[in-house]
């Protein structure tokens, strides 16, 4: 029974992916930028093994001389949602920020090991972090639109990257991004109004539109719904399930039910306190979400998801 359902879901997914892609192509807006290796076309019925988009290889994070995260080895695949869960201080946000070099912005932070994006180490000195952040977008806990119009919020990144030439092309790009972020219908008549005029949930979807307007193939989300009410939260979750037809999503969340609802894979990080009270994060278990939340392999995971902690 479950097999049939999986196949149905998979084929539906592929249909919609193709649809989304052809729409994007029709709009003259290729969702995957040229340097990213494109995948061969897949037959509609068969779900092929998804390629790895991001992988970490003994990745560890230091703040000064203190190791904040023990070596992490993980693969993230195309068009999958991965949730990073764990108690405060377990390093999950730190790990997330490694994937688009956001930790570069913290002077004392240092990343050892490798983070590969389509096989290329993004910490290689020759790699431009701005280019990485264009391809690996990010959405934060608190919606943070620019103090600009709704239109400008979405067009900003694309403009810098020269992704559109001329007004008509940019209009289409903005509309596409807002449609993919499930916000278009709500804002199409007030694109000139300030991003701040929107509700919290709408602002967060605007930030998602902004993140995907630069044609990334990975979107990082750090607690994207924790500042939102339950309805706005469900909207974001629905949106994630739509977006995963075209993007890989890695989400940090404190809400285990949210992780269970949206993700394909879940990674549980735990925190270790040393005698000086310093906290080190460690990847405990990384597996299919269904498995992790029903029969985890590690007792630490079991303790955490059943509410035993300390």
């Amino acid at each position, binding site marked *: 029974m479950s097999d049939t359902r999986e196949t149905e879901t998979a084929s539906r997914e592929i249909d919609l992916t193709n649809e989304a892609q052809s729409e994007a192509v029709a709009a003259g807006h290729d969702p995957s930028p040229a340097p990213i290796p494109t995948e061969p076309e897949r037959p509609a019925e068969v779900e092929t093994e998804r390629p790895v988009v991001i992988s970490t290889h003994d990745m560890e994070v230091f703040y000064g001389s203190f190791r904040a995260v023990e070596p992490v080895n993980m693969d993230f695949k195309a068009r999958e949602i991965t949730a990073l869960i764990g108690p405060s201080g377990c390093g999950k946000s730190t790990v997330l920020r490694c994937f688009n070099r956001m930790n570069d912005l913290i002077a004392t932070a240092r990343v050892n090991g490798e983070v590969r994006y389509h096989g290329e180490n993004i910490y290689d000195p020759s790699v431009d972090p701005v280019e990485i952040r264009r391809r690996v977008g990010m959405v934060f806990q608190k919606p943070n639109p620019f103090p600009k119009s709704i239109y400008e919020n979405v067009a900003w990144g694309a403009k810098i990257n020269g992704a559109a030439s001329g007004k008509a092309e940019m209009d289409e790009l903005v509309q596409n991004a807002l449609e993919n972020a499930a916000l278009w219908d709500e804002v199409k008549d007030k694109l000139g109004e300030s991003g701040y005029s929107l509700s919290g949930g709408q602002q967060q979807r605007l930030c998602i539109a902004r993140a995907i307007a630069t044609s990334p193939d990975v979107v990082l989300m750090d607690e994207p719904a924790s500042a939102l009410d339950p309805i706005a939260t469900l909207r974001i979750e629905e949106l994630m399930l739509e977006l995963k037809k075209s993007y890989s999503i890695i989400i940090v969340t404190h809400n285990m039910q949210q992780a269970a609802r949206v993700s394909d894979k879940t990674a549980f990080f735990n925190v270790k306190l040393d005698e000086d009270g310093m906290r080190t994060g460690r990847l405990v278990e990384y597996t299919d979400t269904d498995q992790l939340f029903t029969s*985890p392999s590690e007792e630490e*995971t079991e303790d955490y998801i*059943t509410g*035993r902690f300390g």
Partner: protein
Amino acid sequence: MTRPQDINLHFHQELEGLEQTVLGVVDKAVGMVEMAVESVVTGNVELADEVIAEDGEIDEAYFSVHTNWVHLMARFQPLGSDLRKMSVLLHLNTTFERMGDQCVNIAKITRFNNGLPRVERICDQVQEMGDLVRPMIRTAIEAYLRKDADEARLLPAMDQPVDRLNANMYKETVAVRDNPELLEWATKMLMVSRALERIGDQAVDFAEQTVYLITGERAEFNEMGLDESADAGIG
């Protein structure tokens, strides 16, 4: 390493309460099997009435457990072994309720067969089946309480003689075909045998759930084909 502090204590207390209510039905079910078999073997109609009355209590417990179960799921959305336990308790609640129903089926046959002639050999076989299935239920609950998957895995072997006796009952029934009154009685006893065979299967099912609870892996115990031949015999 010491076990971490339980910060989900309230839920765990409620879950324990739910578990005790579900398992509390098992003792009652074992008692009902004993009474139902005795009633049908000895033709004791008063005892049969007692069985039917007791089933009302099992039904009440069933509905109460189901209501509490839904509330607990809605309020706590448990995960991990807590979720497995919730799943197992929902299943067991139904299993035990059905054991009660099978006992009622037997008790009703006691009433129906009242005054009909009987065959001692068939009575002995039904008694033997009853004596085999009760220890099965007890072993299953012991395995559950001790979290002993190996003990749970004993159940299929314990079920084999029950299936064998059930298959044999068909032949016993055919053997009295020339006496219409005896045949009527024996046909009903065939249904008793079938009910006891089902109770045995339900005990095996209980053990499968126990293995799932402990290991997280689905277990489908092999019935060794005996069950199938029994089914083929009496439909």
